[in-house]
């Protein structure tokens, strides 16, 4: 019986590959967009304008404080009621990007706040513009705080992408659901699904660990 199941599983491998591809594409697009947006929000959040900062803060809290499944349902099922028709892929990208941006915003804001005020004062005193202060002085120093948790967050977000299967996107998790209907061995099927995610995530986990070690060393060295 197990032999039959394995054979049948082997036949599903084009579908599995498609699912893996969908998971990777979804994650990649939303992580890139989410990172850009998250840095922008993090910079604005710490930028000194109290109104902007608190609006972003409230949005970030709202997103971090609600389940991702609920968010994706709201975007996919509620927005059309308001006349915004979205296909599942776009809805998935929007939801994941927003989630990524909110978590990354907090990481970036914490990094920026960790840069000593003396650094900003030195940059101010030499007449650097707001853009150059950020680009040349603050962000490079914030990055050593930001990078390790950022990569760790990527891992979490890739795994969160499995939730998009709930709105019918054929990602790795949904492939699992489809296959298990033909191959009634949930343990085996979802073990393989898990392996698929792990293959995508493990290099990032390793990267995060390496960055953490490197940044730790560099930080001690650079300490004034």
């Amino acid at each position, binding site marked *: 019986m197990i032999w039959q199941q394995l054979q049948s599983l082997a036949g599903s491998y084009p579908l599995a590959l498609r699912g893996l591809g969908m998971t990777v594409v979804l994650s990649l697009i939303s992580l890139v967009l989410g990172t850009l947006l998250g840095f922008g929000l993090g910079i604005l959040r710490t930028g000194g304008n109290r109104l902007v900062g608190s609006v972003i803060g409230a949005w970030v809290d709202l997103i971090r404080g609600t389940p991702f499944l609920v968010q994706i349902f709201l975007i996919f099922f509620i927005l059309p009621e308001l006349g915004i028709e979205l296909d599942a892929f776009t809805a998935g990208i929007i939801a994941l990007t927003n989630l990524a941006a909110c978590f990354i915003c907090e990481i970036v804001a914490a990094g920026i706040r960790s840069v*000593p005020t*003396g*650094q900003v*004062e*030195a*940059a*101010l*005193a*030499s*007449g*650097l*513009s707001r853009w*150059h202060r950020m680009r*040349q*002085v603050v962000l*490079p*120093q914030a990055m050593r705080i930001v990078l390790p948790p950022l990569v760790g967050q990527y891992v979490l977000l890739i795994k969160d992408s499995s939730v998009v299967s709930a709105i019918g996107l054929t990602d790795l998790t949904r492939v699992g659901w489809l296959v298990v209907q033909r191959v009634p061995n949930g343990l085996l099927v979802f073990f393989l699904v898990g392996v698929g995610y792990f293959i995508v995530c493990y290099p990032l986990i390793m990267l995060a660990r390496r960055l953490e070690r490197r940044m730790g060393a560099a930080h001690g*060295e*650079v*300490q*004034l």
Partner: protein
Amino acid sequence: MTANPKGPANMTKTGMIDFRGVNKWFGALNVLKDITLSVEPREVVVVCGPSGSGKSTLIRCVNGLEAIKDGDLVVDGQRLGDPATNMTQLRTEIGFVFQSFNLYPHKTALENVTLAPIHVRKIPRTEAEKAGRELLAKVGLADKVNAYPAQLSGGQQQRVAIARCLGMRPKIMLFDEPTSALDPEMISEVLDVMVAVAEEGMTMMVVTHEMGFARKVAQRVVFMDAGAIVESGTPDEFFSHPRTDRSRAFLSKILRH
């Protein structure tokens, strides 16, 4: 350069830095009390006083790191707090040396010096680097061009910080206790550089207790206590014949060591 900034000689011209009745509060604390002080072009003014007397706050107001509450502060002909004054632009004319150096730790000595010239003054990189090397050589650090701040001693870091300011060719240099964070054996190497800058005719305000420096290059010593200017005079007048009890008490404390 008389002790009285409101003297007849100053009636018509305005100084490079002009405080007129400046007040500042931190909450309920009146940290600057009715400050009136004029620093002439090429003048070196040393500001001293007990800690918490407002001397750092005073010079931090000059480049707008602290905002003043009322009164007028005119720097290089531009009124601070005036919407017409471009603060970023004005700051390019004012060098500021911090007690804790505040070098950019992720940039080499040369990059620290060339950053603002390249991005603010828009000087081509090769030209800025040439000028940067010359400045670092001038402060005695020709061999440390590619060193990171963490690889430099405190005295060396502070000399890089001074070179970083000079790289902008400022009209004014402000020093906020530049030698207070240094080990004693490194103080003189920094003071020597400051003396050289003063002798080139830089307008300077220096918060320091280094009396040797004051005697050597300052035209005027301003003594502050509890947010107010208590006494102002030539270094010789001030150190040899302090006029108030508070300045005598202060001097006896710093001279004892």
